[in-house]
């Protein structure tokens, strides 16, 4: 075989290969196990000595040349093919994507999380307590008198007598009416000073409507230290609302109220964020310009005594606030029953 003729033929074949795939075949026809060049290389052995060296050198060089050429040719062909292919791959970008699996967290969870973060930044620890409570923690220790209408301020869900017995309780058990019960449980076990919040589910035996639910969530706050005043309470609350609603333009007012476990006691109103108190027909605040948002006060000395804390040395504030109320204000939800309806059309809005 004449190396020159072989070279010309092979180069011409490689250069005219129409596709990368055909190039592979052409290459195999020369360089494969039974390829022309491979056979030619094998046949060198039978040649006489001077010729053997010369042809061998030529053929080996040819192999290198072909391989290099094929490599370049392949790169070129692949690029051409990719370009051609790309042009044929039009996709309508306005058509929707494959939906990703997306879960959601309940708005009341999101509010509680935010409440926790804000109070944590002011040094408040988060604690918990049971929903099924004893009278002591829910009422007696909180200075709520027996046989007095102030105990009726919160309609209580009591367990039937035989149900309480199932839990080996001699006295009737109840569903806690407020998270204040957690205050007592915490103070029994800890020494002041402390700053805590307790968030959780509470219960009232009330007919349900757009503003009332049989169960709802509360955040209870308690700060006991030396010389804690109403002015301190106002500052802590103001800071909370400022962060929660993301507004520096917040105004709070304290009004007198009554809770057996605080003295003095207040209701706290927040200036209506919707109408700023300027619209008499505002549906959020009913035109009053103010939204009642929480109950609070300075912890009653008897409550501290009940948990063996000396009220002459320690003093502080406590407050209780509805998580639903905060959430409704934040997301402009107008019916509390949405929170317990499990309607996926509602829940999935909070993903």
């Amino acid at each position: 075989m004449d190396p020159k003729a072989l070279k010309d033929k092979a180069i011409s074949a490689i250069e005219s290969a129409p596709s990368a795939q055909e190039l592979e075949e052409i290459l195999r026809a020369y360089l494969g196990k039974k390829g022309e060049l491979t056979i030619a290389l094998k046949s060198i052995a039978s040649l006489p000595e001077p010729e053997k060296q010369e042809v061998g050198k030529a053929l080996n060089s040819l192999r290198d040349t072909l391989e290099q050429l094929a490599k370049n040719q392949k790169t070129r062909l692949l690029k051409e093919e990719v370009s051609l292919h790309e042009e044929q791959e039009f996709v309508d970008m306005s058509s929707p994507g494959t939906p990703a699996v997306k879960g959601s967290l309940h708005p009341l969870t999101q509010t509680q999380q935010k409440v926790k973060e804000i109070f944590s930044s002011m040094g408040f620890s988060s604690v918990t307590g049971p929903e099924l409570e004893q009278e002591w923690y829910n009422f007696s220790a909180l200075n709520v008198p027996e046989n007095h209408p102030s105990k009726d301020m919160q309609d209580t869900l009591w367990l039937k007598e035989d149900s309480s017995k199932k839990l080996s309780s001699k006295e009737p058990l109840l569903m806690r009416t407020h998270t204040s019960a957690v205050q007592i449980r915490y103070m029994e076990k800890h020494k002041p000073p402390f700053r805590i919040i307790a968030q959780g589910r509470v219960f009232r035996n009330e007919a349900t409507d757009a503003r009332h639910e049989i169960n709802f969530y509360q955040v209870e706050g308690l700060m006991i230290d030396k010389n804690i005043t109403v002015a301190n309470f106002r500052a802590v609350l103001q800071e909370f609302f400022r962060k929660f609603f993301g507004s520096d333009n917040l105004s709070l007012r304290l009004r007198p109220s009554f809770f057996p476990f605080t003295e003095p006691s207040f209701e706290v109103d927040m200036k209506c964020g919707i109408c700023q108190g300027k619209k008499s027909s505002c549906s959020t605040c009913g035109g009053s310009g103010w939204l009642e948002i929480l109950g609070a006060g300075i912890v009653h000395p008897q409550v501290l005594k009940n948990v063996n804390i000396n009220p002459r040395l320690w003093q502080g504030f406590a407050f209780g606030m509805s998580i639903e109320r905060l959430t409704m204000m934040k997301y402009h939800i107008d019916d509390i029953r949405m929170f317990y309806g499990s309607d996926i059309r509602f829940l999935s809005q909070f993903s």
Partner: protein
Amino acid sequence: MLFSYSLLQEHIKEPLPKPSALADALSMHAFEVDAVEKKEEEWVLDVSILPHRSDCLGHRGLAREIAAILSLQLKSLSLATVPSKTPITSVCPKIQPSLVSRYSALSLAGISMVSSPLWMRKRLKALGINAINAVVDTTNYIMVELGQPLHAFDLGFLERAPITIREARQGEEIALLDDQVITLPRGAIVMNQGGKLIDLAGIKGGKGSSVQEETLSIFLQSAVFDREHVYRARKTLRTTTLAADIYAKGVDPEGTFIALQRALFFLQDSFPHLCVLGVLDEYKNDQKPSPISFPQTLSEQILGIRIPSSQIKRILKNLGCAIAEEKKDHLRITPPSWRPDLLLPQDIVEEVGRIYGYEHVPAIMPTSLINPPDEADDLILAREIREVLKVLGMSETYTYSFLGASDPDILGYTEEERSMLLEIEEPVSQEFRYLRPTLIDTLLKAVAVNRLHNKKSSLKLFEIGSSFAPQEKGEYTCVIALPHDTGSESLDQVKGVAESLMSSLGIENSWIEQEDPQSLARKSLWHNKRTGKICAENQTVGIIGEISPHILLAMGIQGRVAAFSVDREIVSRMAKKDMLYSSLPKFPSVTRDISLLVPKTISVRAVTRGIESAKESYLTSIELFDSYEGEGISQGQKSLAFHLVFQSDERTLTNNEVDEELKNIVKKISQTFHWQERE
């Protein structure tokens, strides 16, 4: 309680601010005013009198409060005088002193059942009280004006036989003014005449003893019945009147006789020939308020603002307190008889603070040291679990803590399961009769509700909350409901979520074991053949499975529903607080697939453990990738296909080494368990 603006004005010398401004002042300094409305040409304020302030359950009391807030003067009350030589009444009830702290009465002749004056009728109407006749209207008027309930008896009726005021015995009956006969609880205060009960004292008049059409002389009672007795009776009877509400909160015993004199003042107007036949006033007088030693600095210590001493004294004086200087900066304060709620120096601070105005209290951040705050472990864990479940595509929901009266039927409860339910005493609605023993019950109700909106909705819900079965227990619960599932897609997905959750919490090597629902507390909830326990560290962490098809049928839920619920306590004990990094393998692994023919009844877990028991040096992981039964597999058998991964820490394994170990494993399980490799 409703208050007439013009009647309030009658008690105050200076002109009052406009009704809306008055309402604002009351709201900011005393009581919330719920509404200001014009009724019967009268401005009426609906005021929420706080439960410890029974002194303001009458116009005179509220006027006194308004005067203190606005620094106005209270007018003196026009009273009739009872002639000093008036004899004792012919009727002298025998009274148990523990039930009645003061009992005042007048016997009056010269009355008849004519109408009361128009102005009185109008005013009562505006306050929501129907006019009846001059006598009854006057008693009602005195009650709303002075907060002292009065009752007019027919004098002749009472004179028939001696009268005792005593506690009712359990089950005694009484016929009331409105003709109903009720059975009394023990301890209600009653008037007994010759073995017959004639009055339910402090709550409602008795039939016969009260004034009649033909009554010409009356016994006008102004008494203070024991607060707690009235409170309990009213609560048990679940019946109330304005008088009972007032008594249940407490009445000032100093006011009984004044109320009679005031009534007499009005009655003389209606009846020119009115004659006072007799008078009675039995007063125990043992409820004198004790003086309070009040350090003046306390108001600053509590409120955080300095209120001048002169202001403090003025405020307390306006509220009716007697003030004396005790020692330096200490006042000795004696509250008035109508303020038995003032007991502690803190109570005085509240009075001073609210009248002075809380708007003067500035916001001052506490300057005390902050201890770094903690978060309860349960809360941290719940937060992590929520994040994991959300990423896995689950939507969080909150359901009620209750089951309705008919839910146990729908949810297939057996008698035994019912017996664990905790029941609420007198729930406001039958929808809230029982406490849920598992969150799965209420989540199933959530599925059913959603299917009402959309028959085809696929639901993936989770809830974190407490259940009561009967002990209170924290649960993390997931439910997946796929409407078109005819196989086990819901169950497979729920298993996947449970497994991901366990591993995300660092609970390694958890597994699911078949379970007979009959051995579970909530047995009827589960599918007989598709229920399991989630286990880890040889403990049951939770229950997983498909919901019983009977329950789905009863609830009208299409497709299949699968759920799991894990126990908060156990998870919280097992969850790893810290994850440790394990170094990546230095050498490549080799994977071989193997299909085994095993009896249909044997669990995947048993087979996996079988393979594991046969391993030698290099097998590091066994993963099921296919399970098949049917054509090509003999009856009673199934084929399980696994990826087996081999790995060494020291070098790259050769094919020979891997093949050798695989061969030995196959041989060993074939000998031990008689599982054959499928060709």
